[in-house]
């Protein structure tokens, strides 16, 4: 068991290395990074200053290993605009994003899994069709379109929720809930579609198995058949998709935070784009990739422990 876990952990390291390599060379491939970062109106002294501050005057391999050593000390460099370390900027902004992501994952799983099970149970009925329509819509309606649709109807017309903003749950929980509701619904739409579709597909597959017939034959209540016997055995692909979907979620977070004016990591990215603050973009890519890899690693390890059928 320990060896299995260790192998999984070790196999994640080269992936992270490749991410670092990609991020490092992306800036260099585009020609003179200092000139790009400085913008079109910069003087040659400004360009030179950026070049020195980024260490671009040293040979490439030295730059790369210096940068990797920096990363290993959890140093993501400093923002070109504010001069603050990128790690402390991330730390300042992480709470709203974490809250939004968490509420979205919880809400989506609570809605999508029963939805998928229901669709699978009533496969080819109107309920199933409805669920599938919701799924296709979820994949097709852009996040911001959904966001403004909800704002227009529930915040401006009906005045049920505030239009935008964020309050920490540790400061005022009621306000937090009212402000996080619409962003959560917005971001959940695509995630619900993703999870419901895979739940439906894997439950349909499991429902054809012999043990389901046995459970029904011995008179097990249908709801227990569905949730205890079927869902449990269909869980692996569902949990996998929840993990893989985090990549989708991160993209959505950037847009949702921008629509609802939430001061999280997504806004940090958008502000960095307008200011051409590349160290922030670079740092956030590494940060999000790390979260994605670690999360999927944890899911992988849980499988090996929970599901005796999986052995690598």
């Amino acid at each position, binding site marked *: 068991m320990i060896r299995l876990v260790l192998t999984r952990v070790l196999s994640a390291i080269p992936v*992270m290395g490749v991410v670092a390599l990609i991020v490092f060379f992306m800036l260099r491939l585009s020609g003179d990074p200092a000139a790009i970062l400085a913008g079109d109106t910069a003087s040659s002294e400004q360009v030179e200053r950026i070049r020195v501050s980024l260490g671009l005057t040293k040979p490439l391999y030295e730059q790369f290993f210096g940068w990797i050593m920096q990363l290993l000390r959890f140093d993501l460099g400093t923002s070109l605009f504010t001069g603050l370390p990128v790690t402390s900027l991330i730390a300042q902004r992480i709470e709203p994003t974490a809250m939004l992501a968490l509420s979205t994952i919880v809400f989506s799983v609570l809605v999508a899994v029963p939805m998928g099970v229901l669709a699978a149970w009533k496969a080819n009925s109107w309920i199933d069709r409805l669920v599938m329509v919701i799924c296709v819509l979820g994949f097709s309606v852009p996040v911001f379109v959904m966001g403004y649709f909800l704002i227009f109807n529930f915040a401006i017309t009906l005045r049920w929720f505030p239009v935008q903003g964020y309050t920490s749950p540790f400061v005022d929980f009621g306000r937090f809930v009212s402000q996080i509701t619409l962003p959560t619904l917005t971001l959940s739409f695509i995630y619900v579609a993703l999870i419901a579709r895979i739940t439906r597909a894997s439950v349909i597959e499991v429902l054809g198995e012999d043990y389901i017939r046995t459970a029904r034959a011995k008179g097990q209540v249908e709801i227990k058949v569905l949730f205890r016997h079927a869902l449990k055995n269909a869980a692996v692909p569902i949990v996998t998709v929840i993990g893989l979907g985090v*990549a989708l979620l991160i993209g959505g977070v*950037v*847009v949702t935070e921008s629509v609802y004016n939430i001061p999280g990591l997504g806004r940090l990215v*958008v502000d960095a784009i307008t200011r051409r603050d590349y160290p922030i973009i670079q740092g956030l*890519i590494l940060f999000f990739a790390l979260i994605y890899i670690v999360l999927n690693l944890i899911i992988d390890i849980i499988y090996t422990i929970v599901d005796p059928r999986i052995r690598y």
Partner: protein
Amino acid sequence: MSAPATSLPPARLSGLFPFLKRYPLVVIAGLILGLIVLAAVFAPFMFTRDPTSMSPLQRLRPASEAYWLGTDHLGRDVWSRLVYGARVSVIVGLAVAGLSVIIGLVIGLISGYVRWLDAVVMRIMDGLMAIPGILLAIALVSVSGASLTTVIIAIMVPEIPRVVRLVRSVVLTVREEPYVEAAVSIGTRLPLILTRHILPNCIPPLIVQATYVCASAMLTEAILSFLGAGTPPTIPSWGNMVAEGRLLFQIAPWNLLWPGVALAVTILSVNILGDGLRDRLDPKLAKRM
């Protein structure tokens, strides 16, 4: 093994009418897409005016006979911008789908067949897939400057690993087939094996994948433009229209509504078309979805 014949679509549906009856949504989606592409190609003849010409006196006008869908904050005609904006979405969708499928196919074929390359290529693909696509695209655009070409490349790069994985999985199953072994044993050269025996197996799932890539590319272009890291603001695109319309959307909601609806309908149509193709071309995948 006998599969229940009723669960599979008939091999051939002759004529448009039976097809329409069996897949009404797919036909409607195809028609909508056809219209959108036509409108994009013949944009100047679609009762449009110059989508970039500003008339400050006509700012934020609601829909009227002169301006079918109203005007934006610079007095530009929303209908004209919408029609010309379709060009960006169509170009980006088709270009990204085409390019990422071709590049992914080549990489996937070679990686699936040449064992020693496989490990290296797949690690690179794993790394690319670990970076959220939109962030990768944002970074690529922000280092190379905004232009339509950059946007296409930036959206394409995160899509390639998905294609590579798909092709590779097909190659790995097909390479063990007896006819491939036979071809190897009579000394067929590698390029011929790949193109003659393995490639044809990849085409049906790739066509399906291409439609999904196309939908996701249109979505990503809109998101990039919305965030200010996409198509330059001088070019009318649906994402740019939403980005500009959001500022005054309480006063002039149509500036946001129409490009939003256009995006949703177009992407929805591409997805429905993709699902239809999947059911016809790739029944194995269709069963799993």
